[in-house]
């Protein structure tokens, strides 16, 4: 194994967070480490603290207790530009306000590298074209954004994140608005690219079967604490599904693939 795969990108230590004017502590002592090149799924029921966790590790919320270190630096001491050099983000859904062309849209991924006037250098354009080629967005490169299908939009957003050329890509339920085929296409593509570019993926996922297929590690949140953390093959089991999600399931294995089928409430 290469040495750099063990480099710790994100380390969270004893993280506590309460929203202002609220009594409920959303995160109660969360600790975890994510290493370079890992594909990590963040799991948990609604309200378990996943979204808050994402807002914290992207530096959108800064008044936390404990420590969040991005490549060894405390995140609330970093500028937006510093963070954008390391982390890119793929939102659940992007609502296009103005019908930018896909090319202009992907170019915005270069914001942290381009000058203030937005004149793309040769390097910027190369990164944009490469990202568009890898995601297939090159096929509708000059089309206006509002004429794309849901799958094409999601791929353009991923292309924008790739153009940012970061070591970490955070994806917030990337398959939420996609049909069956596109869900698979998008995940497959992200995983391939992550392996090829040695990019760390942190994905918020709902479906345990997606976790089985597309991630090597999982961090499971329950009521603001980490209920399980480790290799997917070791931690994701029927007991966890009933403890955390309150669902009884059966495990089906065939041709080396494994899937969970829920059948009743626990």
């Amino acid at each position, binding site marked *: 194994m290469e040495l750099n795969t063990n480099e710790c990108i994100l380390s969270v230590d004893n993280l506590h967070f309460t929203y202002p004017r609220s009594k409920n502590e959303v995160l109660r002592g969360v600790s975890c480490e994510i290493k370079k090149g890992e594909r990590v799924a963040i799991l948990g029921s609604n309200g378990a603290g996943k979204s808050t966790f994402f807002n914290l590790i992207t530096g*959108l919320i800064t008044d936390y207790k404990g420590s969040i270190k991005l490549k060894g630096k405390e995140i609330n001491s970093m500028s937006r530009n510093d963070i954008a050099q390391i982390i890119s983000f793929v939102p659940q859904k992007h609502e296009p*306000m*103005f019908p930018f*062309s896909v090319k202009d849209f992907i170019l*915005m991924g270069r914001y942290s590298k381009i000058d*203030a006037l937005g004149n793309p250098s040769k390097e910027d354009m190369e990164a944009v074209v490469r990202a568009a080629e890898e995601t297939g967005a090159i096929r509708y490169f000059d089309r206006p954004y509002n004429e794309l299908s849901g799958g094409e939009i999601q791929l353009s957003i991923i292309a924008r994140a790739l153009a940012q050329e970061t070591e970490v890509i955070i994806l917030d339920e990337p398959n939420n608005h996609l049909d069956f085929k596109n869900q698979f296409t998008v995940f497959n593509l992200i995983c391939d690219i992550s392996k090829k570019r040695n990019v760390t993926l942190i994905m918020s996922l709902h479906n345990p079967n997606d976790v089985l297929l597309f991630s090597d590690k999982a961090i499971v949140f329950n009521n603001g604490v980490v209920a399980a953390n480790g290799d997917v093959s070791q931690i994701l089991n029927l007991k966890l599904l009933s403890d955390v999600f309150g669902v009884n399931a059966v495990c089906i294995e065939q041709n080396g693939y494994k899937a969970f089928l829920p059948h009743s409430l626990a």
Partner: protein
Amino acid sequence: MKKTVTYFIMIVSLIFLVYFSINIGNYHIPPSKILSIIFSSVTKTPFDSNISEYEKIIVLNLRMPRIIMVLLVGAGLAVCGAASQGIFRNPLVSPFILGVSSGASLGAALAIVFLSKLPHSIDICAGIGGAIAVTAAFLTARKPDGSIPRLSLVLAGTIISSLFSSLTGIVKYIADSETQLPAITFWMMGSFGSVSWETLDIITWIIPINIILMIIFAWQLNVLSLGDKEATLLGMNIKRWKIIYIYFIVSTIGICVARTGTIGWVGLVIPHIGRAIVGPNHRSLLPMVALIGAAFMLISDNIARGLTTGEIPVGIITALIGTPFFIYYLRKKEASVWN
């Protein structure tokens, strides 16, 4: 390439329109004389003997400064409209709808009544009034989580405009009915009638400087229009760029209002026409919007001063042209705009 051709056509048409506009007026001066006056004045050569002093004054001291002011204000209002639509990612707003214009009006009315002796008091008070109004509209529409729903912002702007208009009403009520009240009333309807080289003072030139700066940094508007969260995660300091652009908008609108009164609809309508021609990328949109805004204002002002022997306030003309267009736009794009 196609865009370059479009710009070229727009610039050439604007030049012809400017020449055409110099020819319009109650006092008829033959086009050949006008060309000769302009030529002599630019090259500083003696004027033809058949040109009267009167004709020289009309062309050089009345029509010329007026047309320059019309171009600056038209371009300024339109670019500020496009910029505010980008910042608030809302195609339904303009400085007028956000309350900037009514805030600036209140400031200017207060200055006319109470501070008429201080130099530049109208400019400064209009700027401050506009800034207060847009801040108030912003805070009214903002939800606790920081988001601003599209329709809430339009509604908040309308509410704030209404509040500031009624305050202006009070100022008019206490104004001197012989001198101050007519001044406020006529000025509020929006007109270029009193423009001279003295009105085109150094402060007016802040308008084109702001326009150029907004165009230079237009890329920031592209990223801002993605929304706060996405722009932040792309590495943008959104607070800084919003403040910079709101400063550009408020100072430009403040000066426009102080010079020519409130002229509505340009900032709302022209950006939509611009997007239909060159697309939504603000780097090409803003220059195009400046050209269309200038041309639109010039046409409106020509109608205002050419239609009757008197002079119709130009704000009435822009509203008469702007509103039907906007109704058409909303009907066509209804679903995507309102939600």
